[in-house]
Every structure is written in structure tokens, then in C-alpha cells.
């Protein structure tokens, strides 16, 4: 059991890298689409809704396969500079995970935007603060604070989601566990050890979010 530990830890580092980059891009995408969702223009609104509906209504595995196997099928993409990115399974995984978590994040942020009390915006308006500054300095910070608990859940869901990267040949924690299983024929040792590492990561993320909630938590 001890001998398989180092390779699993190497995998865990890749898992964390995947998680960090997809959470980063996902947050940007989510913020963009949540702003589009609260836009009053019905076309923009519908587009953002369609995006989140597609990515929340289909399994992550389908999205991953669509990007990894599907995009490579398009002649035009294969000849463009984008081929450098989409031929790497690592980048395909990050694209799929970012788009997926972006959809969920946009929903979390949208509901946070919509539950901001009218009073805050009215107060800003009566103080003569411009719409733009109200948005950046009041609405966005409050929305982020309010959505911290839900976002914490999303990070943990995504940590579990990154395990799918192993099916497109990335040696993340799950991939390493599979390799150990194939090499040693000891499924219980391999998968239970990996499970313990995943649980440990979940536990750490959970506590960091809890700490942030306590520190920046917002009582309304």
C-alpha cells in the first residue's frame, strides 16, 4: 500500500492542477454568462440560458468526448492554430471542465444577483453613484459573497468531475489508481487509497470555504 502512494500523489497533483485551472476559467465564464443572463435583451438572455441548459442537462462525459474526439473531426479546426490546443487531452479536459463549471457558476451567480436587495442599488443611485460603479463595487462583491456556500459545493463537484480526465488518457489521481489496479490486480488497495486522497482533498476544500465564509460571510 505504501509503495503505490507516491504515484498516486503525483496523480493528485495533476488533479489539483486540472481543478485549479478549470475553476479559474470557469469562474470567468460563469461571471460573463451570469451578467448575460440578467440582461434584459431577450436574445442575449436566451443565448445564455441555452448555454447553461445544455451544459447542465448533459453528462460531463459527453461534453468531454465531444471536445476531445468531436472537435478533432472538424477539418477547419485541425488546420488552424487551435489544433495545438485541442490535440492535447490535458487542454481538452480543461476546456470541457471550464465550460461545465462555468454553466453551474453562472446559475449560482445569477440567483445571487437576483437576490440582492433593491435597497442597496437604490441607495447607491440616490448617492449619485453611476450604474457602472454600482455594478462593480456593490453588486459583484455582494453576489460573490452570497454565493460562497453554493460555490464551495461546486468546487467539490468539480473535484469529483476531474476524475473523468482519466478516461481520456490523463494520468490524474484516478488514472494512476487505474494503472495500479491493472498492474497489481489489487482493486481494493488502489481505489480505496485513491478514495482516501479524494476525501482528504474534499475535506480541505470544504474547510477553506468554511473559513472564507466565516471571514467574508455576509448576513442580509
Amino acid at each position: 500500500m505504501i509503495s503505490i502512494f507516491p504515484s498516486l500523489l503525483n496523480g493528485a497533483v495533476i488533479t489539483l492542477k486540472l481543478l485549479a485551472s478549470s475553476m479559474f476559467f470557469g469562474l470567468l465564464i460563469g461571471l460573463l454568462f451570469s451578467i448575460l443572463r440578467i440582461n434584459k435583451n431577450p436574445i442575449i438572455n436566451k443565448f445564455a440560458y441555452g448555454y447553461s441548459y445544455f451544459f447542465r442537462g448533459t453528462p460531463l462525459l459527453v461534453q468531454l468526448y465531444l471536445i476531445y474526439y468531436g472537435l478533432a473531426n472538424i477539418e477547419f479546426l485541425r488546420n488552424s492554430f487551435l489544433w495545438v490546443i485541442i490535440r492535447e487531452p490535458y487542454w481538452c479536459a480543461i476546456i470541457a471542465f471550464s465550460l461545465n463549471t462555468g454553466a453551474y457558476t453562472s446559475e449560482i451567480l445569477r440567483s445571487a444577483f437576483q437576490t440582492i436587495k433593491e435597497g442597496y442599488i437604490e441607495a447607491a443611485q440616490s448617492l449619485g453613484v453611476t450604474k457602472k460603479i454600482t455594478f462593480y463595487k456593490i453588486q459583484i462583491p455582494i453576489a460573490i459573497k452570497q454565493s460562497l456556500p453554493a460555490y464551495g459545493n461546486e468546487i467539490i463537484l468539480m473535484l469529483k468531475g476531474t476524475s473523468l480526465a482519466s478516461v481520456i488518457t490523463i494520468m490524474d489521481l484516478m488514472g494512476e489508481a487505474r494503472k495500479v489496479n491493472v498492474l497489481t490486480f489489487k482493486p481494493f488497495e488502489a481505489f480505496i487509497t485513491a478514495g482516501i486522497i479524494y476525501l482528504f482533498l474534499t475535506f480541505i476544500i470544504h474547510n477553506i470555504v468554511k473559513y472564507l465564509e466565516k471571514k467574508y460571510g455576509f448576513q442580509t
Partner: protein
Amino acid sequence: MELLSFGDTGWGDELFFATLMTIAVSIGAMAIGFLFALIFTPLKLSKNKTLNVIGNCYTTIIRGVPELLVIYLLFFGGTGAAMYVASIFGYDGYIEINAFITGALAIGIISGAYSTEVFRGAILSIDKGQFEASKVLGLKKNIQFYKVILPQMLRLSIPNLSNVWQITLKDTSLISVTGLVEIMRQSYIAAGSTRDPLFFYSVAAVLYLILTFLSMKIINKLEVRYNKGF
């Protein structure tokens, strides 16, 4: 479109049966999940510390590890365990456990953890007066549960159970890694033999969207029906 025709040349009928398989696995997993939830919800609510810890361990561990891990553990581990048990009884051949059963069981264990949380929340949000009133009326303990608490618990948990159903439906795509021919596996096979992955994975995505859309419609109807009196 030719690729989707029914019959020997197209993949239409294969994909159709694969969709039925996905629905069957999801329903099976949801049912198994309910069984797990019915066992573990009382444990989580019990005042006994040990039982409480057991209930909490189940939901925390299952919700903290990837779904794929549970599936692999059951798929690879299950075969080994079954062969070990069989070898005790003197059978040394290779045993392969049915992929449908392993899949439904694995997804069921996962969906059970989510259902447990939903039921626990529902019971906690039932008005305390209901428990007291049924006690005052002198109802027996099990009748209290079946006739007063359970109906209310189910009504309160429908919205959240619809989320669990969606998660379960999407999780069934992971069983494809064990070789069970559901939507995902069938599209993988079709994509491999026609060399057109983009098309077939798009079809898979659309099939999943149709399934989630239809199930949302049905669940919304249920919700309206069970909220009639409120």
C-alpha cells in the same frame, strides 16, 4: 441522417435501445437509492451516537469521492470478491458479474447518499406540531410514520428529488466505462466504426437533453399534483 436510420445500415435502432437502457439503469439506480435512503435516513436522524456516525459516514464518503471511483471499485472489486466467495465453496472458474446490476448498484449507492440528505431535510422541515398531534391522538409509532410523516416527507422532497434524478440520469453515462451498452457506450461504438465522433456525441448530448427535458416536465406535473391542498 442516413446514419440514424433504423435497420442494418443505420444506428437509429441501436441508439433507441441504448436510450431505453439508460432509462432502465436510471430507474433501477433511483430505486436502489431509495432503499439505501430508507435505511440511512433514520440512522442520520437517530439520537444514538453510533448509528448517527454510521449514517454520516455513508453520506460524507459517497458524496466526497468521485462517482467513477465507486463504479470501478464495484466493477473490479466486485468480480474479485465474488470469485473469492465462490472459491470458498469450491468453484474456481471466472465469474463475471452482470454489468447492468453492478452499474445500477454503483449509481444507486451514490444516488442513495443524495436521497438520504433530501429525506433528512424534508423530515426536519415538517412542522413539529404534526409529530406532537399524531402522538396526542394516540397513533402507534409505525402508523405515525406511515400515515402522517411519510406522505408529508415525500411531498416536501419532490423538488429536491428531481435534482437527484437529474444527477442520477447523468451519472449513468459513467457506467459506459464498464461496457454496459447505454447511450454513451453506443455512441462510442458508433463513433468508432463510422469515424464520425462529432455527430454521434452530439446525438448523445441531444438524447440526454431530451431525457432531462421530459423528466422535468413529468416531475413538474407531479409537484403540482402533490401540492394541490397547499
